[in-house]
Every structure is written in structure tokens, then in C-alpha cells.
């Protein structure tokens, strides 16, 4: 009898304690949620132009299929499932996380996700956010020249800054570049370049949307 009573009292105390602590926690969490609006980041991503229509970001079930098929995850500390989790928790530090720069944009995750989410596009948008904040010049700076040459010649080209390394790794790569026009002639193909009038058009259009300023900010 005594033993039983003691047990009951202890149980009740523990119960009451847990009840209040829980209430407390719930309240705290509620306040926390309202204050921090954890879905703000996710909603920003969903509204980005780079996000596919009806992207299933909010439907993510954390199954990990993205990570299990991801070449970035296989070969670095990058983890797309965890990246999506942090986005859904409103953890903005993910924007500064070095690991997001290990994604290949291969869209394997995008094609296997059971709920139509696209970690690949989430990643692209996070990187854009980091670029807009001006915090990743070391990451995008070397690629910014791609934009310059697009403004100059109206089409894309491998950035000149990578030419020497490419030529070191690939025997005869620069020789090939110098023979290109001739080879294209042998193949009966037209010029690589576009007419001056077209270059002007491309240049005018891109400047109109501030592309040149965007490029300068990356450097």
C-alpha cells in the first residue's frame, strides 16, 4: 500500500511537471515560430523565377533519396536532404554554407524526388542569394568573365582565365582553338561569331536589365 501510494504521488508529480514543462515548451515554440517565421526562406525560394512551377519544397518528407543519388554528397560534405531540412527550418546560415558549392546541377535529385521537390533548384536559388549579398566573390569571381565576353561577342565562351589550365590538362587544346576556323571551313560550317548588329542587340538588352552591373558586383 505504502509503496503504491509513493509511486502514485511520484507519478503525479512527474506528470504535472511534464505537463507544465511541455506547455511551456509549446508556448515557447509558438512564440519562436511567430517571431522567426521559419517558412520565410522556403517561400522566398518557391517564388523565385528559378524554381519550377509547383515545386514540392514544402512537401519534402526527408526520405533522403536526393542524397543517396547525389554525386556531390558522394564526394564531399554536401547533403541535399539536410540542405532542404535547414531551408524548411528557416535556418538562413545555409546561405553561407561552403558545402552548397559542391552541387553539380545534374538534376538527379530533381528527377528522383517522390514529392516533386528540386534540391538542385533550391541550391541554385541559395547560391543566387549569396551572390546578391556579395558574400561569395571568391566563388563566382573567376566565372564573372563569362558575362563580360557575352556582352562583348553576344555568345557564350569558356572563360579565358581557364585557358591555361585547360591547355595544361588537355594536350593540344589551344592549338585546336587556332585551327578552328579552318576546320569549320572543311566541315562546310558557317562562322562561330554572330553579326555585329546582333552583338549590339544582345549587349543593349543585357545592359537594360542591369546584367553588366551584376557582373561587376561579382568581381
Amino acid at each position, binding site marked *: 500500500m505504502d509503496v503504491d501510494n509513493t509511486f502514485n504521488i511520484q507519478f503525479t508529480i512527474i506528470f504535472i511537471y511534464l505537463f507544465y514543462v511541455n506547455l511551456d515548451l509549446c508556448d515557447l515554440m509558438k512564440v519562436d515560430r511567430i517571431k522567426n517565421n521559419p517558412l520565410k526562406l522556403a517561400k522566398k525560394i518557391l517564388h523565385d*523565377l528559378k524554381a519550377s*512551377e509547383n515545386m514540392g519544397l514544402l512537401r519534402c518528407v526527408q526520405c533522403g533519396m536526393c542524397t543517396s543519388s547525389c*554525386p*556531390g554528397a*558522394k*564526394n*564531399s560534405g554536401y547533403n541535399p536532404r539536410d540542405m532542404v531540412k535547414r531551408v524548411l527550418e528557416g535556418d538562413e546560415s545555409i546561405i553561407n554554407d561552403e558545402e552548397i558549392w*559542391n*552541387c*553539380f*546541377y*545534374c*538534376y*538527379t535529385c*530533381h*528527377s*528522383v524526388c517522390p514529392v516533386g521537390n528540386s534540391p538542385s533548384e533550391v541550391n*541554385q536559388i541559395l547560391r543566387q542569394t549569396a*551572390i546578391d549579398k556579395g558574400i561569395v566573390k571568391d*566563388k*563566382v569571381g573567376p*566565372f*564573372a568573365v*563569362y*558575362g563580360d565576353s*557575352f556582352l562583348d561577342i*553576344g*555568345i*557564350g*565562351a*569558356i*572563360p579565358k582565365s*581557364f585557358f591555361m*589550365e585547360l591547355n595544361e*590538362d*588537355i*594536350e593540344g*587544346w589551344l592549338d*585546336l582553338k587556332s585551327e*578552328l576556323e579552318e*576546320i*569549320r571551313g*572543311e*566541315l*562546310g*560550317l*558557317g*562562322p*562561330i561569331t*554572330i553579326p555585329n548588329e*546582333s552583338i549590339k*542587340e*544582345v549587349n*543593349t*538588352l*543585357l545592359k*537594360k*536589365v542591369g*546584367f553588366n552591373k551584376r557582373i561587376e558586383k*561579382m568581381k
Partner: protein
Amino acid sequence: MKIIPDKNILLFKSCLVSTEYPGIESSTKYIFDQLGVEYIIDHEQSCCSGLGYYSDVFDQTSTTLIAARNFYVTKKNNAKNIAVMCATCYAINKKSVKLLNKNNEFRERINNVFEESSMKEMKYEKGSLNPTDNIFHVVEIFFNKKKEISKHVKIDLSNFKIATHHACHYCKVHYEDTIEGFRNPRMLDELVESLGVKTIDWYNTKINTCGAGFRQRFANKPISMKVTGDKLLELNEQNVDILIHMCPNCQMQFDRYQPYLSKELGVDFNIFHLNITQLIALAIGGDPYKTVGIQTHTFSIEPLIKRISEDTI
């Protein structure tokens, strides 16, 4: 299955095809001519800006603005369809058509830029292109005509062991439009079969990405090379002679870096890398140098040509 066109086509120029493997373009033209596919090329067309987009340099607005101008070039030629030779051109153009059709506010913004730049003839009219019915990879056009291709075959390739590499930006980005599967893609395998050769079909790394990863090849070479090497190692174990591509960027990753990886990994890789357009052109009688353009390959295709001529004798 979706209807695949054989006329009113703008053959969309690709920066990497033009500068790395122009043989892809001349082979495509050669096959189109043999099959009677009607197409035009317009040098006023800019490129898709995809290399910039996927190395985070181009934002969506800039990329779609350039795409909309290219759509105008298409319309000006009375072409209704765009056929691309590069998987990234495919993904980028489809994405831009989808956005321009669905997002009214965004389309207005793009059209205003044209208006304010005195290029109002370039304005995009909602629905003037359909992402599924008007944007194609040239391989889909060949696939649709594979019975006819079979009739043109002049060279026996059955002594070669062939595997396929289906480009991620064709298979996985707009997967709802991908023909012949994206989890076990078979479009290239069936095309190779129409040339009279059975491929090895499925292999463990079949759907693995090439490893270029846009910025990764340049900024993160060790992991880029690791991904490329993994695939080459498996193909080597399976004694594959030829790997078939459908994207100049993948082709560049494998062909240009194979000798580098042979040294790095201490494995003698002897795999020929050909684009499907080059393989078909070769099989139906195209000249290796004047049509197929093997002279721009890093891992020489000459031993392959030699083996073919020995087999034929």
C-alpha cells in the same frame, strides 16, 4: 507519344558544339539532308547562355531575355520548332518558354525591356511556342526516324562494344517530356540498335552525371574528375569500345580528360567518345574528316576508323 516534327525547324547553334566538336553540327546537317528533314540555321541567333546560367553568372531574367530574342529569330524565319544539339540548350530553352507562357507579370517585364530598347518586334506572344511540342533535341528527331536511318546504314559496327551516356539536362530536368525513360534511359540505346549493334544497355553508373558540373570542372577539379573517373572505370571493366554522347559538354568532359585521367589513375583508358550524331553520320557513309569532324577529338578516333576499314575489307 509526343509528335516530333521534321520540318519548320531552326537548328539551334550551340557554343560548345561550335568551338569544341563542330563535327556534331556537320553530322546533324548530313543526317537531316539524307532523311529530308527541313531546317534552317540563322547566324543572328545568340547562344542559350546556359554555361553562364549554371555557373551562377546569369540570372533568370537575363537568360530568358536572350532566349526570347532567339525565339524571335526563330519566328522571323517562319520556323515553329527549335532543335538543339546540346542538352543544356534544351533545358534552358524549355524553361524560358514555360516561364514566358505561364508568368504574365514576368513576360510583361521582358516585353517592356524590348519596347524600351526599340526592339518591340521581339516581344514574346503568350503561347507562341509550346515547351513540349516545339522544343526538341535533334536526337529525338533521329529517334522518330530510326527505321529510315536503318535503311541508310553502310558500315558494320557490330564488332564494337557500345555503351550510352544520356545527358542529365536532357533526361532529368524536364523529365515529363523525356522520351524512352529517364531512370533507365534507352533513347540512345535504341538508336544505336537501329544501326545494327546491340549496346551493353544498363550499367551501374549509366545515369551518373559526366562530372563537368559547370563550375566543378574548373573550381573543384578533384571531385569533378572523381565522378568522371568512376564512370570510365566501370566502362573499362566492361571492355567498352565506344561511349555514345548527346551533349557537347559531357563529350568534352570524357574525351578531353580521358588521357588526363589515364595518367591520374594509372589506368590505360581506350574508350572512343562519339556523339550519336557522329556515330550515325559515320554509319550512313559520312566522311570522317569532312562530315564527322574527328580531327577535333582529344582521344584520337583514327584507330576506330582504321578498325572499321579493316573490318569492311
